[in-house]
């Protein structure tokens, strides 16, 4: 639905920390589904862990946060020059299954509540339709 160029027009993240590759579905102010291809070439696998590459859980949270940022920024007609969304709180996050090189991480973000620049979203990540992580994220916005 949206390619990497459209993602980069909306979120400020860049190499080596842009953790979404494609947007599969997008409903303004409601939900977004993103895709990340996990590759052995990514730097974190050198240390996490040597000989046993597993995508760190915090990277899954960051993938969710970037997907949430895309939902909010794209819904508001693209990035405003001085508004930055900060991850403010992570609730009830569970990791059910390791994510490995070769996996396609599909993350669905659903807007639960949004008022005055703050937002609460629910996040669910799957690989091959199997649940790998879920939780709730909160964002605050500020002038960067």
């Amino acid at each position: 639905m949206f390619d990497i160029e459209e993602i980069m027009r909306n979120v400020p993240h860049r190499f080596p920390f842009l953790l979404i590759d494609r947007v599969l579905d997008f409903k303004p102010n409601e939900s977004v589904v993103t895709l990340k291809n996990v590759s052995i070439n990514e730097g974190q696998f050198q240390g996490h862990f040597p000989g046993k590459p597993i995508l760190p859980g915090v990277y899954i949270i960051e993938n969710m946060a970037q997907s949430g940022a895309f939902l909010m920024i794209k819904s508001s007609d693209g990035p405003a020059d001085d508004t930055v969304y900060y991850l403010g709180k992570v609730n009830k996050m569970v990791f059910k299954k390791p994510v490995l090189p070769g996996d396609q991480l599909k993350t669905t973000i659903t807007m639960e509540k949004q008022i005055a620049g703050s937002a609460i979203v629910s996040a669910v990540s799957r690989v091959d339709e199997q649940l790998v992580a879920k939780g709730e994220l909160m964002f605050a916005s500020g002038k960067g």
Partner: protein
Amino acid sequence: METAEIRSTIKDLITEIAEDMDTEASAITEDAHFTEDMGLDSMALLEVLATMEKKFSVSIPESEFPNLTSINKCAETVEKYMAQSN
């Protein structure tokens, strides 16, 4: 649900959220102002609103957001919308 029960449920919820903010337990009273006395920020206030809606199965319109400034004010607002939905 009785007013006192609503108030104590909200107080428990505020105590939990205030822990995130490093608020002194003694600052949490029913009349204390969320931002001025307890140091809650806008994200914490949104969490208060969303959690109250879930806990009391009530829908509180966005226009009430600026009025949710203390435990007592929250209890009044929750009661108002619970009465309307009955």
